[in-house]
């Protein structure tokens, strides 16, 4: 493949700027290259995207509240990244497979993951909240960048099966510094794997600003690995939708991987355990607030003739309901059975683990006997 081929895809990074179809103030920016990919998005469709974003924002806030109230052990908020997650997830087909990090709650929601399933892991009740094959979405990845290779391998398998489905991997700006992500670029490019690398550049990796990871726009990383890179306004749901559709289309046509850098911002803490005040300013936060992903869509819808206020009110109502459902769901998550700690370590019988399991069962039984004995006033063998 010669570099010019890549240029021919017309997708090479636009320097110092990004693809934007809706300005922060809600004007529709026209772009001959990207408009065709969202030509089908009329006012109703746009309203649905607004609805998605509004609901996940509310769910995210509710989960944060649940953590503060002790119902969850931890929660990594997505606040600020609604457009990046909804715009990309809504571009996917049901048979595309998602390999995400820990922050893609909105993506999981789009895949159909239910409220209890969404919270299970963060409540510490089970190792995973859902069956990856039920929603075509892998268990969220905490090891930074590891999932980029998983998505790539999955996509290699798709080409060998001559499927036209695709895989998408979500990771952050910090993740681009990990070897795994770069190796994923190498494999994906080498095997023309139908995978979309969706990088949410939310400007921070916990306390580290993105320019500590890279002095170059992250989308520029793509070219050197022989794939196109798109830099898009990650707070513009329409632009993200268009960019992801373009990347998925390339994947389905056997053209291989694409890297998308969605420029966005983490409005909240890294997780509920983090204190952003230690490393970033209120001004920065205020500045990004002016680029809110939701407000601009309401603005555009108004200009398109939709009764924005009515929509907003209606969606707010839906959101409250969804939040209430989430809150109700958390208490329905069953506490795990003690002996389940041994389940699923292996898919096949394992002599060593069976023995260890038996020993622990005897250990627990000893206390029950002791308690029983104590209850019947007798002497217990164990303390």
């Amino acid at each position: 493949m010669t570099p010019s081929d890549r240029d021919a895809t017309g997708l090479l990074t636009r320097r110092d700027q990004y693809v934007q179809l809706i300005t922060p103030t809600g004007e529709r920016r026209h772009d001959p290259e990207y408009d065709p990919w969202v030509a089908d998005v009329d006012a109703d469709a746009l309203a649905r995207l607004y609805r998605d974003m509004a609901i996940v924002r509310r769910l995210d806030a509710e989960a944060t509240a649940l953590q503060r109230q002790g119902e969850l052990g931890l929660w990594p908020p997505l606040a600020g990244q609604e457009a990046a997650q909804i715009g990309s997830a809504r571009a996917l087909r049901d048979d595309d497979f998602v390999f995400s990090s820990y922050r893609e709650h909105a993506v999981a929601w789009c895949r159909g993951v239910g409220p209890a399933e969404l919270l299970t892991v963060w409540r510490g009740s089970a190792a995973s909240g859902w069956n990856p094959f039920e929603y075509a979405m892998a268990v969220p990845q905490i090891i930074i960048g590891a999932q980029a290779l998983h998505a790539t391998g999955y996509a290699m398998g798709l080409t060998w099966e001559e499927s036209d489905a695709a895989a998408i991997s979500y990771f952050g700006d910090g993740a681009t510094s990990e070897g795994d992500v770069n190796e994923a670029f190498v494999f994906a490019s080498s095997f023309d794997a139908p995978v979309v690398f969706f990088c949410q550049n939310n400007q921070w990796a916990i306390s580290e600003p993105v320019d500590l990871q890279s002095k170059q726009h992250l989308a520029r990383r793509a070219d050197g690995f022989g794939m196109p890179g798109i830099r898009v306004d990650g707070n513009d749901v329409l632009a993200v939708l268009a960019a992801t559709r373009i990347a998925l289309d390339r994947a389905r046509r056997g053209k291989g991987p694409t890297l998308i850098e969605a420029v966005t911002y983490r409005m909240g803490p890294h997780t509920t355990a983090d204190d952003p005040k230690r490393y970033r300013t209120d001004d920065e936060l205020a500045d990004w607030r002016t680029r809110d992903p939701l407000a601009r869509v309401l603005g555009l819808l108004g200009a398109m003739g939709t009764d924005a206020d009515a929509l907003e009110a209606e969606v707010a109502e839906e959101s409250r309901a969804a939040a209430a459902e989430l809150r109700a769901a958390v208490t329905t998550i069953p506490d795990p059975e003690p002996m389940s700690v041994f389940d699923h370590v292996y898919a096949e019988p394992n002599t060593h683990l069976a023995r260890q399991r038996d020993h622990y069962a005897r250990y627990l039984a000893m206390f029950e006997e002791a308690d029983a004995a104590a209850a019947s006033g007798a002497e217990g063998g164990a303390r």
Partner: protein
Amino acid sequence: MTTLTLGKALNEAMRRALAGDEKVVLMGEDIGTLGGVFRVTDGLKAEFGPNRVVDTPLSEAGIVGTAVGLAYRGFRPVVEIQFDGFIYPAFDQLIAQVAKLHYRSRGNVRMPLTIRVPFGGGIGAAEHHSESPEAYFAHTAGLRVVACSNPADAYVMLQQAIASDDPVLFFEPKRRYHVKGEVDLDASLADAKPMGLATFIAKGDDVTLVTYGGLVQTARDAAIAAAEDGISIEVIDLRSLAPIDYESVAASVRRTGRLVVAHEAGQQGGLGGELIAGITERCFEYLEAAPVRVTGHDIPYPPAKLERHHLPDLDRILDGVDRVLGRPNSLSGVEAGAR
């Protein structure tokens, strides 16, 4: 004497090391501006500047690999791995480079790295945040491996690790970061106890109970509880996991004739096996019962709500003590062979 938390004691140890040797540099993710996710390096960047306390890109192999290059240049890098579960991407640099370079260069290149690793469970964390990977490193020639369990040791041992010309994996029991203790900030390293030696936490005659890191306090509590039953447990804080201070442990076992080893890490291939084999070689004729291992199960670290069913606690340790003493225990009636 000053009262400090274990985390603060580590912080003071690094402050003293940075002040005492300009070649000492700290490297890691979020250790500078943020002061580390556990605040263990809090204030050090402000005090010593960004070239001494370095926030690095998000790459563990990158951190350790560049630290190797810095060691070539004569620096003494003190690397923080943010959580135990994130050390594996750096494994190749640690095993194939850090551990081997002194040997491979016939002694010309020294690797005085200190790799700080908050380790172990008990804090209800998400997956990959509660691992006990120490055995991987104890099995790796060329590395030294130590684990601290209290503020006073943390303060002295970390300085000793940094001062060591050999690479040291320094394990910090994260569930103990906030526990307070007395620390002598002016203690001279010269007459401090070497980090290679174990410490007797409690004296006893019936059973030798060996552990390290986060379980040392649990073992001490177990000894107190057992005393009420008239059982005298000698508790040893191993401190150095490679090499192991077999002299101290063997001396104790020769008196007690009974050994219990406890650690959070899984049993299969864990350090308990090494200790039991090493002690059996040295004290076979003194052993009155088969040494017992009380460890985490051989499972991936479980979800937070199950970790209490994974980690050895006071009761499980006492059950192990009962087993080694032949008192009623969870395996009573189970034929040894079938165990």
